[in-house]
């Protein structure tokens, strides 16, 4: 693309116009055009847009249009061998048409609770555990030594031998045992303290997990509701898609482009749809079909 002028499209006036822009002979990269629609004008011309990317960035296409709705993420760029999550997209399409569900209010409340929930960082349990494990061994070792020395002192005394050296050694070992036991008690306490903090952290995590489960459940039900609402319209569109299947016995098992075109027809777009497939005679016809502004690449 070197030497070419930067492509700038002004499509701010929205989709009511159902304009069709044909870029097929401009040699643009479809992926870049789709990205330009998603990112909007701010990203393309912002302070970070050109500088960092150098010459490359300066030639990125710019599409000045309204911010795409969620459904655009799924079917805003129609291209060969694309794959579409049909149910998810149907729900997004229903939302684009202002669809609501009985779950919306509860869902918003659950989301808000989740956003407010703070989960304390778990304490470091490794270090105190490791320390405790070491002290246990140390206490056992020195305790065995004390017992052995005691036995030797006893035996020496009974045999009438001089035991003062052994006694001194025993006293030293006994003192060390005391120290080790103190150390172990401290390590034990450190573990218990960390465990208490861990429990608090887990309580919060448990609350969060329950809320997340609840959110997922509500989202599933909301999606099912939305899909049900828009399913007939989708199947009608599927029957009429150029190059689509002869019968729609399995509306959720159709090829990506067919699905995208049918889904796009039932969705209400706010931003231009980038189309890179040959199902229609001309860009104008795609725009009419999708009832949206179309950039044909």
């Amino acid at each position: 693309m070197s030497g070419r002028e930067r492509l700038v499209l002004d499509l701010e006036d929205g989709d009511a116009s159902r304009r069709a822009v044909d870029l097929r002979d401009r040699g643009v990269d479809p992926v870049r055009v789709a990205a330009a629609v998603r990112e909007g004008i701010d990203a393309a011309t912002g302070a970070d847009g050109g500088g960092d990317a150098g010459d490359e960035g300066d030639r990125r296409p710019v599409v000045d249009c309204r911010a795409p709705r969620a459904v655009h993420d799924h079917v805003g760029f129609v291209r060969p061998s694309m794959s579409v999550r049909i149910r998810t997209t149907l729900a997004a399409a229903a939302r684009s048409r202002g669809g609501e569900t009985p779950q919306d209010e509860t869902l918003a409340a659950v989301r808000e609770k989740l956003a407010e929930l703070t989960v304390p960082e778990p304490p470091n349990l490794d270090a105190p555990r490791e320390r405790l494990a070491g002290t246990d061994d140390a206490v056992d070792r020195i305790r065995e030594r004390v017992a052995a020395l005691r036995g030797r002192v006893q035996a020496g005394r009974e045999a009438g031998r001089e035991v003062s050296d052994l006694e001194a050694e025993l006293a030293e070992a006994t003192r060390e045992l005391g120290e080790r036991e103190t150390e172990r008690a401290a390590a034990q306490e450190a573990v218990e303290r960390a465990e208490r903090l861990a429990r608090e952290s887990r309580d919060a995590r448990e609350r969060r997990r329950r809320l997340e489960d609840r959110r997922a459940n509500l989202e599933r039900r909301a999606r099912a509701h939305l899909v049900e609402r828009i399913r007939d319209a989708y199947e009608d569109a599927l029957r009429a898609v150029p190059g689509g299947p002869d019968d729609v016995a399995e509306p959720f098992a159709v090829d990506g482009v067919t699905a995208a075109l049918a889904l796009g027809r039932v969705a209400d777009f706010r931003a231009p749809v980038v189309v890179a497939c040959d199902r229609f005679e001309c860009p104008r016809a795609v725009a009419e079909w999708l009832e949206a502004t179309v950039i044909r690449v």
Partner: protein
Amino acid sequence: MLLVVSYSRAARGTLRNICRTHEEVVVRRFGRVALLAETEFAAFQALRLREKHGGDVQIERTRPFNEYEAVDGSIREAAKAYEDRERPALPYATFAESTGYPDPERMRETDL
């Protein structure tokens, strides 16, 4: 045994996968909790889970409960007698008072 508890959806998913892949280490799985065999391999799997999900995973080691070792005979007898009581609505505290079985408050304060 090793008691492994997950505290997030992601950790639960990984725990489920581990249990599916390594059935031999699983003694029992209850939703987001699993009891694993006491082997190095089970410990390895549990540690791997914790490595991946951090504070969302709790690992504890359980030991067999032997009521003849862990508690006094009076506790075992109290449990048996209370389950055999004639009035189902009778609270244990009242039952203990009239029969001389261990006081619930005292039991609460006594560790095993």
